[in-house]
């Protein structure tokens, strides 16, 4: 490792290099007082530099025995980790069985798909939330034309993540970041109500013995567990995502972050496209970090725009090509005739496929034939 990669200030770096210290190893055996004299800096500053240097060298030497490359994890270990995570998140025996089969084998991929389609269909919402469980980190981007139901899906996910463990849910809380001002509390209330109704229905269905596990949840409780942030500029968006780190440490039970929509401010006030790309990818990285650290799902909603390709206009998700690379999974919502469809456009583990859904008073449901499209894009 070389000096220029050390996280120290530019002037300190300059001094080190001009004094002939170009690699970390050259710093390994020098004392702080010598260094201070050579660089003409104070003793404490030199100490600081050495600390940083030994810190960034540290893991390489200490962990050398267990991993060949610093910070790497073997695929086998990852599999193991994911399995143990699942045991935490699902307490349903059925599901544990299925997931115990191993994540890379064919069945599980299928489950991955069907559970994802359930995010969209979500008639069996109980299984829906286990979709989040089965892949503890889903970094997902959902895009679609206006009126297709992106916000509805966002609200639905924020509600569904709270389905208690007894019903195969996560029993977590949700962070809802609203950049457009389109979050409707009344709508969230309706969806929460329907969700509770469905749970009691399910309860009656599955446990004929009416006694235990009565639903104590009220729609108010569900609403109380949705942390709503209203963002008015892209600066606030960046700031909030920086701050979420702290917020989530205090609220460990948050299991999903919904951003509706990630695009809005970035499409309004940017002239400098290079800056936009830089800021966006920085934000995506931070979100991905959050998803990993707190093992939660991140759902980003995106807008669509029209794009010229081969002399014809087509729809494409906003924010351009470099942004498309940043998200792990990408779902596109679209109209097919009179039905709403969701299509997996990109995913490392799921095959691309599409499924119909509809938006009803009770939330997102399986497609029903009576849905009528108003063709007014």
């Amino acid at each position, binding site marked *: 490792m070389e000096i220029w990669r050390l*996280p120290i*200030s*530019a002037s300190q770096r300059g001094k080190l290099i001009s004094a002939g210290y170009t690699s970390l190893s050259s710093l390994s055996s020098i004392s702080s007082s010598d260094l201070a004299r050579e660089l003409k800096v104070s003793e404490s500053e030199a100490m*600081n530099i050495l600390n*940083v240097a030994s810190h960034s060298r540290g893991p390489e030497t200490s962990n050398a025995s267990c991993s060949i490359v610093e910070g790497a994890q073997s695929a086998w270990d990852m599999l193991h980790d994911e399995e143990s995570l699942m045991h935490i998140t699902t307490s349903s025996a059925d599901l544990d069985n299925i997931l115990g089969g191993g994540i890379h084998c064919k069945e599980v991929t299928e489950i991955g798909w069907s559970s994802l389609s359930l995010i969209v269909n979500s008639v069996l919402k109980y299984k829906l939330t286990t979709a989040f469980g089965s892949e503890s980190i889903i970094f997902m981007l959902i895009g679609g*034309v*206006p009126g297709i139901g992106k*916000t*509805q899906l966002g609200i639905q996910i924020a509600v569904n993540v709270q389905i208690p463990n007894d019903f195969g849910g996560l029993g977590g809380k949700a962070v*809802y970041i609203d950049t457009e*001002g*389109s979050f*409707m*509390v*009344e*709508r969230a*209330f309706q969806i929460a109500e329907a969700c509770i109704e469905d749970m009691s229905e399910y309860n009656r269905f599955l446990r004929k013995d009416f006694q235990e596990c009565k639903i104590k949840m009220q729609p108010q409780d569900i*609403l*109380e*567990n949705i942390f*709503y*942030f209203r*963002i*008015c*500029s*892209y*600066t*606030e968006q*960046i*700031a*909030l995502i*920086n701050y979420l780190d702290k*917020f989530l440490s205090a609220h460990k039970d948050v299991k999903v972050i919904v951003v509706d929509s990630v695009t809005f401010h970035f*499409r*309004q*006030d940017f002239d400098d496209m290079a800056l936009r790309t*830089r800021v966006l990818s*920085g934000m995506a990285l931070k979100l991905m970090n959050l998803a990993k650290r707190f093992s939660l799902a991140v759902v980003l909603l995106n*807008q669509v*725009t*029209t794009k010229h*390709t081969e002399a*014809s*206009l*087509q*729809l*494409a998700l906003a924010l351009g090509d470099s942004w498309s690379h940043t998200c792990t999974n990408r779902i*596109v919502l679209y109209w*097919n005739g009179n039905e709403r469809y969701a*299509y997996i456009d990109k995913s490392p583990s799921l095959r691309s496929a599409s499924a119909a859904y*509809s*938006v*009803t008073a009770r939330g997102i449901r399986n497609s029903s034939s009576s*849905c*009528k*499209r*108003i*063709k*007014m*894009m």
Partner: protein
Amino acid sequence: MANKLISEIPLPKSIANVFSARNISTAKDALSLTEFELMDLLDVGLTEVRSALSQISEIVAPPYQTALSLMEQRFQNEHLGGHFPTGLKGLDAALCGGIPFGVLTELVGPAGIGKTQFCLKLSLLASLPTNYGGLDGRVIYIDVESKFSSRRLLEIGLRSFPEIFQMKEMAQEMAGRILVLRPTSLAEFTQSLEQIKVSLLQNQVKMLVIDSMAALVSGEHEQGARRQQTLSWHISFIKSLAEFSRIPVVVTNQVRSRNHDDASRYSFQVQSRDGATETPMQYDSHLVAALGIQWAHAVTTRLVLEAKSGISLLSDDGKEVMGPEINAIHCQVTGTCVAMAKNAGHNEIINFGIEGLH
């Protein structure tokens, strides 16, 4: 909060001085840079930059509210829980009680369908005292197409609320509350929007109507990137106007006809159509809302008005539905159809006959 000055944020003195020395004066400047760029620029170490950034972020990030407190607040502070009833039962039910406060509601429909009439009626309603179902406040009506008719307005008032409008001074007061602006160019429109922002809160303005958005923008610009740019400023501005004054904003929009449907497809759909895996849908010529997709994203609720006979906006499905048909999924069921019996006579429009089809 984005333009919060760094000097107002309680950072350690040394770091705060470095920020000001490098001319990074607002939170926006600081947060637009990456950590490493900042390290280079400020000439300090990573830990200092990180802690400064997290402090700035914490202050700039808006506070959260739970959805529950949001709802309670709405019901406490706002008339009818933040909805302005239109008096059309079916429509109100579909919209959870009426036109929502704080967001954009758009009326789209072909010429002559009654968009302006709808706006007139709404502004009249909003000016009424609360015990008549109004909002008891002023209405700002931006009349771009010069279609506002005060005679028509009073006529509607006289028919629907005779007890108020038969008294001359009451009629005068109600009509006096509706302030009409007639911008003739986009620049003028922009200017009046900025003025409105100042006066909204001071002057008890309870509703903003813009009739119509499309006329202004399409009148001045050609299609394409430039139009999108000017539009995007207006979109953000009107949205923020609605949000911070918490009033309903009603905007009308025109329709355009479109011949082919490719522009509403994704590339993967086009491919699969060639492969004939999905049934191709043929739309010969249909009407779409003007102003394009970016505008459509900004609209929170879109109400589509259509006539029972004549050009149909939805030629598919066979079943004819009278407008306004609601695509207000933000508020309620899709596919909810509300029928508005618009009789032939101009005068009858005030007597909306309402029945829910679904």
